[in-house]
C-alpha cells in the first residue's frame, strides 16, 4: 500500500504528467468553446421553423410509405428491386423530432454521444503517452533499481507502479468524463437545447462513459507493458506509431489495392470502434446477404485480451531480466 502511495505521488509530481493534463484540458477547452460559440438558445421563431421542417419531413415519409405500398400491390418483384429495404426503410414518421431541425443550436441529446466517443479517443491517447513516459523514464534511468535495493521483489514493485498508474488514470478519466458531459449539458442548457433525455438515454450515456474510462485505462496499461518490455518511453511510442502507420494505414491500402476484402477483422481499430461505439457491420457478403459483424462484446474481449497479454509478458520479462 505504501509502495502504491509512493508511486501515485511520483506520477502526480512528474512535469510530463502536468503538461499532458494541460494538453488534455486544452483540447477540451477548444471543443467546448467552439460548441458554445456556434450555439444559440432557440427562440420561438427558430422552434417554429424547426417544427415546420419536421412536419414536412413527416409528410414526406408518409408519402414515401404510401407510394411504396402501392407499388408492392401492383408488381411485387419490381417493387422489391426498387425498395430493397422494404417500405419502412426510410424511417418512422413518429420518430421525427423537431429538435433535430433546430438551426444553430447545440442539442445535447443528439450530439453528446459522438462527443463522448471523441473523448474516449483522446483520453486514451493521453493515457498512453503518460503511461509510457512514467515507466519508460524509470526503466532507462535506473530509478527502479534504487527501489529494488529496498524491496527486492520485482513483481511487487512493478505491480505497485501499474496499480498506481491504472488507478490514477481510471479515476482521472471518470472525473474528466463527468466534467466533460456536465459541461456540454450546461452549454446546451444555457445556450442550446438539452432535449428530453430519459432514463434509458442516461443509462446508455453512462455506459458509453464507462467504456471511455475502460479504454483509456487499457491504453495506459498497454503502454506501461510496452515501455517495460522495450525499456524506453520512445520505444513504446514508436511501436504504437509504427503500428498505426504501417499496419492500420499502409496495410489497409495494400488490402484495398489487392482487393482482399473484407479486411476489417485484421485491424485493431475495428475492434476498438466496436467496443466504444457499438457493433461494427463490415461486410454484406457478395450478394448483399449475411452481415458480418464485430460485436461490442468481441471488441471488448480483444481490448481486454490484448492488454492482458502485454501485461503478462511485461511481468514475466521484468522478473527475470538483468537490470542496469
Amino acid at each position, binding site marked *: 500500500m*505504501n*509502495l502504491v*502511495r*509512493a508511486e501515485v*505521488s*511520483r506520477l502526480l*509530481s*512528474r*512535469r510530463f504528467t502536468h503538461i499532458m493534463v494541460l494538453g488534455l484540458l486544452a483540447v477540451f477547452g477548444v471543443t467546448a468553446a467552439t460548441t458554445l460559440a456556434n450555439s444559440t438558445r432557440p427562440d420561438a421563431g427558430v422552434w417554429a421553423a424547426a417544427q415546420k421542417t419536421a412536419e414536412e419531413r413527416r409528410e414526406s415519409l408518409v408519402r414515401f410509405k404510401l407510394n411504396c405500398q402501392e407499388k408492392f400491390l401492383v408488381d411485387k418483384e419490381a417493387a422489391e428491386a426498387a425498395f430493397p429495404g422494404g417500405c419502412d426503410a426510410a424511417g418512422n414518421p413518429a420518430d421525427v423530432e423537431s429538435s433535430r431541425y433546430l438551426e444553430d443550436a447545440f442539442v445535447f441529446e443528439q450530439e453528446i454521444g459522438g462527443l463522448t466517443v471523441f473523448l474516449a479517443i483522446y483520453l486514451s491517447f493521453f493515457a498512453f503517452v503518460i503511461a509510457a513516459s512514467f515507466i519508460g523514464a524509470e526503466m532507462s*534511468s*535506473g*530509478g527502479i*533499481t*534504487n*527501489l*529494488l*535495493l*529496498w*524491496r*527486492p*521483489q520485482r513483481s511487487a514493485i512493478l505491480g505497485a507502479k501499474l496499480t498506481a498508474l491504472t488507478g490514477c488514470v481510471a479515476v482521472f478519466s471518470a472525473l474528466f468524463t463527468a466534467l466533460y458531459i456536465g459541461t456540454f449539458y450546461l452549454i446546451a442548457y444555457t445556450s442550446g437545447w438539452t432535449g428530453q433525455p430519459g432514463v434509458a438515454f442516461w443509462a446508455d450515456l453512462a455506459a458509453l462513459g464507462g467504456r471511455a474510462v475502460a479504454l483509456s485505462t487499457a491504453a495506459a496499461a498497454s503502454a506501461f507493458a510496452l515501455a517495460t518490455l522495450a525499456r524506453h518511453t520512445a520505444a513504446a511510442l514508436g511501436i504504437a506509431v509504427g503500428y498505426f502507420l504501417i499496419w492500420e494505414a499502409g496495410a489497409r491500402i495494400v488490402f484495398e489495392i489487392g482487393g482482399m476484402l473484407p479486411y476489417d477483422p485484421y485491424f485493431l481499430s475495428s475492434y476498438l470502434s466496436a467496443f466504444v461505439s457499438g457493433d461494427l457491420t463490415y461486410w454484406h457478403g457478395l450478394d448483399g446477404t449475411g452481415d458480418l459483424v464485430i460485436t461490442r462484446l468481441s471488441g471488448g474481449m480483444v481490448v481486454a485480451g490484448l492488454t492482458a497479454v502485454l501485461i503478462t509478458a511485461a511481468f514475466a520479462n521484468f522478473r*527475470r*531480466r*538483468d*537490470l*542496469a
Partner: protein
Amino acid sequence: MTAVIEISGLCKTFHSLWREEKTALDGFDMYVEKGQVHGFLGPNGSGKTTTLRTLLGLLRPDEGVMRILDTPSADFGSVAHRVGAIVESPAFFTPFTGRKTLQLLATAGGLPRGRVDEVLTTVGLRDRADEPVKVYSLGMRQRLAVASALLKRPELLILDEPANGLDPSGIHAMRTLMSELAEQGVTVLLSSHLLSEIEQVCDSVTIIDRGRRVAHGPVSVVLAGHDTGEHLVRVADPEQAAQVLRTAGATVRSADGVLFVGGVSGPAAISETLGRAGLWVTELTPLTPDLESVFLDLTGTRPAADAPPQIAVPTRRRPPADNLINLDVRSEERA
C-alpha cells in the same frame, strides 16, 4: 570469524543482439568477514559494479555461488532489510526533495520517520533537505545516496564508489563514518579508486582485474607480499658506495644519484657497511610499497612513458583458474 559475503566462481557474460558479448566476471571469488571494512579495488571496467549488482540480485549470474549474510543470494529478499547499498550513482526522482526521497524509502521499508532526519544530519544535508534533488550538485546527490544506504541501520553496507564527487571534507567525514560504523560492528564493503583512503580505512582488500581476483587479504599482508626489501640511500659518492655494497653482497640500482639497495638484512647493515668504508649516509629510507604501486603492478595499469594504458576489453579467457587461497598474487599470468 564468520563470513558476511562469500562469492566463489562467479561468472557473468553480457549478451547483446548487436554488440559483442562481454565477459565481465570470469570466475571471481570474494570473502568478506563480519565486522570488516573491506576494500574492493580494480581498474575501470574490471567488474566491481557488476559483482555488486549480481550480489544484490539486479543481475543474474551465469555461474558461481554467492552467499550474503549466511543466505544464498537467491533468497536475498529475506535479508534485504539488513543490507544498505548504493550501486554506482543511483538515479533519484529529481522533482522530489531529498527528505521526501528518503521518506518514501523509509515507508517502503517500514522505518520510523525520525530516522530520516538522523541520516540527513549524518551526511551533512540537513539544511538542504527540503530542496528538490534536481538542484543538488554531484556531491550532494552522492551524500543523499549514502544517506539512503544508511537509512535502515544496515548490518552490511555495500558502497560502490561512495566518494565519487565528494569534497575533501566529505571524504574526511566518510572516512570517520566508516570507522564509526566498523566500531558498531557494521560490515562495510567499499569499492573505491581512492587508494590512500582505502589504505587508511580498510582492514582488508580484494583486488579484481578483468573479472578475476588478483589479490586479497588484510591490507598489511597484501602490502608485505609486495615488499621488495629495498632501501633508498643517498651518499656523497654514490658510485663508490654502490661498489662497496655490491662487494658486501647487496643488489644495487642507481638512478639520479640515488641508490636503491636490496638483499640486505636491514638499514643498520647498510649504514654499517658504508660507515666502515668511510662513506657517510645522508639519507636512508626503507621502501615500503603502498597500495597504489601494488595495485598498478597487479593490474598492469602502471602508466608507461610512451602511451596511456587502455581499458581492457572484457572477453572470456581460459576456464576459470583455481583460485589460490594464498597471497601469491602473481599466480595469474597476464593473457
